[in-house]
């Protein structure tokens, strides 16, 4: 039961993450300087769903594989990647949360957006690595 829920959360989270990557980076690849309109609306709608899935998924994952590296049979590298991914998630989410308040001037808001952008790239690369290790494990 737990396994299937974990699998479902993982798949939903992965789907949401892919949508976030598309809505976040595609407008930039199309030559837009900033994300606006439908891209922004879609991105902002998926973001809270993704963050819930990350939180729940992280708890379930820790429950199943343990908090230490020696506790489970999962690939040690894959496990490290998940931890780094979770660490990246924190500034990624906080940077955009902080920018939604009136605490910071536009220059720092710009910095926060840069943080969001680069941590998102990091998360994307880590997700690719994780999928690669998972495939190797299955192979």
């Amino acid at each position, binding site marked *: 039961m737990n396994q299937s829920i974990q699998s479902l959360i993982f798949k939903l989270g992965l789907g949401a993450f892919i949508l976030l990557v598309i809505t976040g980076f595609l407008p930039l690849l199309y030559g837009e300087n900033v*994300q606006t309109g*439908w891209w922004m609306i879609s991105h902002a709608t998926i973001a809270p769903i993704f963050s819930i899935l990350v*939180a729940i998924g*992280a708890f379930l994952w820790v429950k199943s594989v343990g*908090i*230490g590296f020696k506790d489970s049979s999962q690939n040690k590298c894959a496990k490290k990647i998940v931890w780094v991914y979770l660490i990246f998630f*924190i500034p990624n989410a*906080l940077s955009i949360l902080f920018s939604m308040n*009136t605490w910071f001037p*536009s220059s720092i808001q710009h910095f926060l957006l840069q943080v969001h952008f680069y941590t998102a790239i990091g998360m994307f690369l880590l997700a690719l690595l994780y999928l690669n290790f998972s495939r190797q494990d299955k192979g």
Partner: protein
Amino acid sequence: MNNRSIFTLFSCILFGQILLGQTKLGDSPDGSRSPAVHRIKLMDHDSSAIRMYQELQLPFSTEMTCGTCHDYQTVRSGWHFNAGSNIESGRNGQPWIYANPKTLTQIPLSYRYWNSAIHPDDFGMSPFEFIKIFGRHHPGGSVGEQDERWEKENSFRWNISGKVEVNCLVCHDVNSAADRSHVAKQFKKENFRWASASMSSFADVSGSAKDMPDHYDIYYGLAPDESKALPPQVNYDRIAFNEKDEVFFDVTRNIPNKNCYFCHSTMVVDKERSEFWQHGQDIHLQRGMNCVDCHRNGLDHNMIRGYDNESAEENSPELADFTCAGCHSIDENGSTVSHNNKGPVPTHNGLPPLHLEKLSCTSCHSGEMPKDNSMLAKTSMGHGLGTHGINKADNTLPHIITPVFEENGDGIIEPVNMVWPSYWGWKNGNDISPINRDNYEFIVSDILLTLALNNEGSWPSINESHIKTILDQLSGQRSEGVPVYVSGGKIYFNRTNGLISEENEIANPYTWPIAHNVRPVSMALGRNGCTDCHGVDAPFYTSLISVDSPLKTDNAIMVDFQSQELVAAQLFANAFIFRPWLKGIIYMSVFSVVSLVILFFFHKLQCWLGSSQREEH
């Protein structure tokens, strides 16, 4: 000294001046910041000094009088005087608007090649007519001085009225008795060459060149029995002249704001507004600045217009100092960009940076705050404000719609004023050109004669059958092409089954950016938070923009001018209702993940301490 010696000396001086490119006396400052006193001789158009003992008094010429010490040819190349020459037109500016409710016409005109403006020649308006109508707020020069543009058939009238020299006094005269509305009066009377003199405190102009026959000569006048009309003439106040026939001009290099206001006043028609005297003005002026502190110029009088791309267009990097960002932003060294002025640098707390990329500064800080419906603006150039005999009704033509937040060619949203053109034209294939004024005015006026015009000077009440009748009449004028009426964003034309209307680019509104009045932070759009613009019913997206036409038209919506979709804008606005939830969810998620990460680090720390202790044992 004999004549030959004098001639040789004069030739040497002249040749020397040409060779050295010497600047004139008044154009070469000696470093003193004290203003020069202008007690000078008046010169007429023939370069003869005006003497008080002469019986025939001619109006003084600014070219000859001011040009004695200042390089008039350089001055007349300036922005205010160079329309009609081959100079780059730059960003759209306020056009001259010819409006006539009797002929259902409202047409933005300009000798500059601005988007959607119509060249007066294409409308069949001669330079003479243009000057006569718009000279009231024209500082001179331009086509009024470009005699190669003057129509040959009208040469008699030009000879009587004279050329329209740059009127230096309009801007530089600070004498409180200088009456600019007198200038407006002279242009109506076709007294072009008398216009500058008429506003000075020491000259009185009477008579009318318009009433003079074509053969009238300003030097010889009329035969006693020829006409009872009073010829144009100037009477100088002898008390103002000293024994050397010099007169004092109270002129200054630092133009006071009130002089600029004569041509650049704007009044917004809004019933909900407080009384006129309660209105504020531009924050820069309230803080003690003058218009010319930013809108500067050198001898060439090429005024700095102060928009973002001006520096690149003019290939002049220093012009960037005089934009909003020039004074109000800091460079990488932490100092303001401008060499001269240092305005407060805004922090824009909580403003996502994309707003600074997608919106002009003026969007939040200039012009009128958007409301549920667009408003009408009245301007000096458009409505003749400040002159005598104008219609002061709120609704008088031309109808300038304000504020409209429009996306410009660079993809930046900025507030603009808008005029919807209404005119009669010929359609040949896809081309539509205006019908010459003379060819339609009598037809349209005749057909609409029975209609009661309102006193407000606004559009008369007409319906499509009037347009159909007029177009039928016009179609008899020409075998080629179809007569059309361009109005309210559409073109109307007759078919066998009746009057047809269709949308056409040619009917698009003419817009020009609003730069003033600038509002401070406390009055800026967005001071109440994101929902000032991103509210579900926020006028920034949903304001109804009047599509002005004598015919009944549907209003446009603000978002139509922004390359955005109303659905997307409103959906995004709705998202602000759920934003606290969104923030809460993400905060909780982050808190959960942070807890796990801390747990992980404590676990690692525990492992490390355990292994250290084992090693010690």
